[in-house]
């Protein structure tokens, strides 16, 4: 971990700022100086570097929230009240049509637990949609994938479930939909009171805990976070391609399909979206209601793999991750090893091999998986762990929408 942690944060912030290039650069530059000052101070106090970087970033809070502050500021300045419709809203309109409650960030005030003393918030709260209709005034949609990993304070005391969704939407700047019909069919009342308090918790962990208790689940589609039943969630199979060529020591052919992939984590970025941000290695495993994930296995594998110099050993026969391709024969067995490793550790009972609905296949080092959001998350973390152990960048994931 180093200053490049700041790069990631600032790049994310920059991406979330819907301002012109010059303004974005100025804000990122100013915040960078602040982060570096803080880092220097912590280092001078004898705080270890990793810890100092982490602390400096934590004090800054989440990039989505901060970006929203700046953006709403510039909106006020120009006295413009434009309705911004990010790509995700199209999905939401479809969801609404399907009778699903959707909450949009910045559309209602909600005396939330994490309300900060920011003076720029008031004008954002003009619209007050009652329940479903009308995604009114949208400041921006943060990349949910990033928001889920962020730490936040949660305080709900006897708050009806639908208001929990609304508040989480506001506080985190993300769109949240409630699959009202699916939930009601499953006998889950949207007014079920929720009581939860956490001082510092990842949003993902919180959702796993809260929804798990209610026998609910969530998934992300088109940058909308959907609360639904575990059954509904599990019935969604998504196809993703994991680029394991480096890990398997295969040469990366130029001009391959992945070269053309567009970058950026925001949904709707095109046909492909590549996510190459590193996943934190010590994240607590987040198995949820369906029992499909197997956190203990993942957790147990981590230290083992990190102790070896090359990622190859994690998958069986200790070939260097950076090495050139060996004979095709060994490659095949590496790939098989890797696939076996994945299917043994992640959701073992769901694969077609054992009669489950999910499939995994490989083509020249690209591993395609058809499974649920949850399982994809586990696979990505597992592969990232292997990549990290082999000193490689995070795995590239192509999402086929």
């Amino acid at each position, binding site marked *: 971990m180093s200053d490049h942690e700041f790069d990631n944060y600032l790049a994310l912030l920059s991406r979330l700022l819907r301002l012109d290039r010059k303004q974005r650069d100025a804000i990122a*530059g100013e915040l960078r*100086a602040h982060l570096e000052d803080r880092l220097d101070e912590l280092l001078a106090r004898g705080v270890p570097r990793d810890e100092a970087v982490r602390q400096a970033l934590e004090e800054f809070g989440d990039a989505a929230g901060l970006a929203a502050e700046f953006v709403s500021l510039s909106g006020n300045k120009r006295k413009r009240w434009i309705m911004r419709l990010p790509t995700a809203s199209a999905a939401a309109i479809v969801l609404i049509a399907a009778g699903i409650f959707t909450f949009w960030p910045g559309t209602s005030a909600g005396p939330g637990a994490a309300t900060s*003393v920011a003076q720029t918030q008031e004008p954002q709260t003009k619209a007050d949609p009652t329940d479903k209709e009308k995604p009114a005034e949208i400041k921006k949609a943060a990349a949910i994938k990033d928001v889920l990993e962020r730490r936040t304070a949660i305080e709900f005391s006897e708050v009806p479930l639908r208001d929990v969704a609304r508040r989480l939407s506001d506080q985190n700047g993300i769109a949240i939909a409630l699959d009202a019909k699916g939930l009601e069919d499953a006998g889950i009342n949207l007014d079920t009171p929720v009581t939860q308090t956490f001082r510092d918790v990842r949003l993902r962990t919180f959702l796993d805990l809260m929804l798990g208790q209610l026998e609910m689940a969530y998934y992300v589609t088109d940058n909308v976070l959907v609360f639904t039943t575990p059954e509904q969630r599990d019935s969604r199979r998504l196809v993703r391609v994991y680029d394991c060529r480096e890990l398997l020591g295969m040469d990366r052919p130029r001009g391959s399909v992945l070269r053309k992939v567009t970058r950026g984590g925001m949904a709707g970025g095109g046909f492909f979206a590549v996510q190459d941000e590193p996943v934190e290695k010590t994240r607590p495993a987040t198995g949820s209601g369906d029992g499909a994930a197997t956190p203990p296995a993942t957790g147990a594998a981590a230290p083992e793999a990190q102790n070896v110099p090359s990622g190859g050993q994690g998958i069986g026969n200790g070939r260097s991750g950076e090495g050139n391709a060996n004979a095709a024969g060994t490659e095949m067995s590496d790939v098989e090893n890797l696939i076996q490793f994945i299917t043994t550790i992640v959701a073992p009972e769901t694969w077609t091999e054992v009669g489950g609905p999910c499939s995994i296949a490989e083509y020249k080092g690209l591993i395609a998986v058809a499974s649920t959001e949850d399982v994809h998350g586990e696979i990505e973390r597992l592969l990232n762990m292997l990549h990290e152990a082999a000193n490689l960048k995070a795995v590239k994931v192509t999402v086929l929408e």
Partner: protein
Amino acid sequence: MVTNKFERDLLRGSLDLMVLSVLAGGGRKYGYLIQKEVREASGGRVDLAAGTLYPLLHRLEDDGLIKSSWDDSTGRERKWYELTAAGRKRLSAQAQEWADYAACIRQLLAIAKVQPTS
């Protein structure tokens, strides 16, 4: 976000004043320094989070109360802020308001015979 050593609502209206005061203390200052000085001046009771401070600074600048310039003479490229004439004027007006307000509250507390415990 501000620590809850003071009521949030109480702080809400006074953050501008705090920042303007720190800048009135002389010379130009950058965000990190402003944050630090507010913390020190309040005996650690007010800790302005970066997420509150920077949007606030930008708003004050938009309102013409402070102005900024970039400079790397300290070895790091920083954005420096200083008070404008309008900012100085706003500061003294706000300071007056706060003094009046505080006096008013003190008066009311005296009538209510409420003594601060510390």
